């Protein structure tokens, strides 16, 4: 609990919910007849309505980017270090919007929500949604908010993929696309990690084919393993060596299967905090959205061709030790952009923090990111 809210925080914030009655045709061929999106906004939309910035979240992210819900709130939003007054995405200059993706478990319609057709939770019957579906639903929200064109759409990891999709699907609806630690599609290795995570959840006896809500239980052990595996892939070998090394919790080996190494303790802690806040069906769905993402597939894998109609200026960032979405994957995006003679800048941030670096306050990351956002802000009306 913060004794007092730090001066550089946006402070106390509230979420809003928008209910959509227009059916949403999904990439799967299914249709969601109605749905809700939960979102948060920070800062003021200017008169010209041209200072809005959309932040797309990653696998386990939410619409709660920054600030606190109450004075009892233990932690601020997930991008508190980036979003706020005077920060990289400066809420004194921008109107910032965070939205929980469809299929999520933090307020937008998802597997936990009640299926109006049955009166019971959707569970596994909630349709698998894709990055394209998310972008379509976010676009509808932007219309409701009266935003015709975003000054920038920003996202890291799976969020960065949404940014890329935005630039492809709605080229006139954004001026800048900021793609951080992302990839134009997953590799076989990426998909394999996701599949192991899904198997961990789906083979948990408490999973009940996804109907666990009705059994008043959750596939806790499966979700824990999925999170531990995922978390491993977000860190680098170096940072794990630095953080934990081979340090023992009790200073000695006990020849049993309890928590002995510090790294084990850390992983279990991560799993504990995740299980309490995340839904297993949503986890399954998010990993599928990741696996399916491949905008170039429509044009025989030609990323350059699929970006031909893009008009946004791009800023692409990657982190040297990110092996989940390595710099090489960002190079592919950058190449396809300059092949189209588009405005693009690319920064490769030296870091040993792995994929999770995009959540941290690394000096060079903040320096280039804020330099770019400054430019974006400079182009907005007063």
């Amino acid at each position, binding site marked *: 609990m913060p004794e007092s809210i730090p001066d550089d925080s946006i402070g106390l914030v509230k979420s809003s919910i928008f209910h959509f009655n227009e059916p949403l045709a999904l990439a799967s061929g299914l249709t969601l007849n109605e749905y809700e999106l939960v979102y948060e906004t920070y800062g003021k939309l200017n008169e010209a309505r041209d200072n809005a910035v959309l932040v797309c979240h990653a696998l386990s992210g939410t619409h709660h980017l920054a600030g606190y819900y109450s004075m009892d709130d233990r932690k601020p939003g997930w991008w508190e270090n980036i979003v706020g007054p005077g920060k990289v995405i400066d809420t004194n200059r921008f109107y910032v919007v965070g939205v929980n993706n469809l299929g999520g478990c933090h307020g937008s319609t998802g597997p936990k929500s009640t299926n109006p057709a049955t009166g019971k939770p959707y569970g596994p019957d909630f349709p698998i949604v894709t990055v394209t579906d998310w972008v379509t639903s976010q676009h509808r929200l932007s219309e409701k908010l009266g935003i015709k064109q975003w000054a920038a759409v920003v996202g890291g990891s799976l969020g960065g993929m949404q940014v890329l999709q935005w630039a492809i699907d709605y080229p006139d609806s954004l001026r800048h696309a900021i793609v951080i630690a992302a990839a134009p599609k997953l590799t076989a290795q990426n998909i394999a990690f996701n599949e192991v995570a899904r198997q961990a959840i789906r083979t948990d006896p408490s999973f009940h084919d996804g109907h666990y809500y009705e059994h008043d239980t959750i596939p806790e052990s499966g979700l824990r393993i999925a999170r531990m595996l995922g978390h491993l892939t977000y860190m680098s070998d170096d940072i794990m060596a630095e953080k934990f090394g081979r340090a023992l919790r009790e200073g000695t080996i006990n020849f049993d299967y309890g928590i002995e190494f510090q790294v084990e303790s850390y992983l279990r802690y991560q799993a504990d905090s995740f299980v309490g806040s995340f839904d297993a069906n949503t986890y399954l769905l998010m990993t599928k959205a990741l696996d399916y993402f491949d905008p170039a597939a429509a044009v025989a894998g030609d990323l350059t061709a699929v970006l031909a109609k893009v008009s946004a200026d791009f800023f692409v960032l990657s982190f040297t030790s990110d092996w989940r979405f390595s710099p090489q994957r960002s190079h592919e995006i950058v190449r396809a952009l300059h092949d189209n003679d588009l405005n693009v*800048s690319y920064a*490769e941030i*030296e870091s040993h923090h792995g994929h999770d670096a995009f959540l941290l306050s690394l000096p060079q990351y903040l320096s*280039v990111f804020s330099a770019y956002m400054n430019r974006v802000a400079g182009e907005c009306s007063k």
Partner: protein
Amino acid sequence: MSLSRFDFQVICDWIHPNSRVLDLGCGNGELLNELSLNQGVSGYGIEIDDKNISKCISAGINVIQRDLDLGLSDFDEDSFDYVILSMTLQASNYPHRLLGEMLRVGTEGIVTFPNFGNIKSRIQLGLGGRMPVNRTLPLEWYNTPNIHLCTLKDFEELCDKLDIEILERRAVSQNNKTGPGLKLFPNLFGEIALYRFRRKAA
């Protein structure tokens, strides 16, 4: 706006308006900025240094953070009208390969480098017996990034070997002083060498 380096002025004079340019080792983006503001030039800079990346982004320059020694394989053939390499050739690991890459992705290449054949360097090495340290080459042999220094003659010989046709050559002093000596003996009095070149017609 006056440019901080005289070789930039010559490069600006050489480049046609509205052309597409790739600036290798673009530093803080000063040259690209000048070219885009005054000559409608578009393109990209490639730079490795973190501080310069931030400066380019602040200036609104398209900059791509990349080590030039890894080559230009991400760029297609004939993507640019000009590929510029200013005061960087001598710091690259494989100057001959880089020149080849420049003319693969661009129609013309522009190179500037400190002339190691300059009289000051010759005197410092030939008479003083020590590696030259002067205003064009300010660092000591052990901490200089300039690992492939050459003279005008050396460069022209390499061009000949690589089937590169030199279109224009200038040798200048750092403060842009001209004199008859510089015209007659560019390899002796030139401090900075500037070349514009292209592939020899097959």
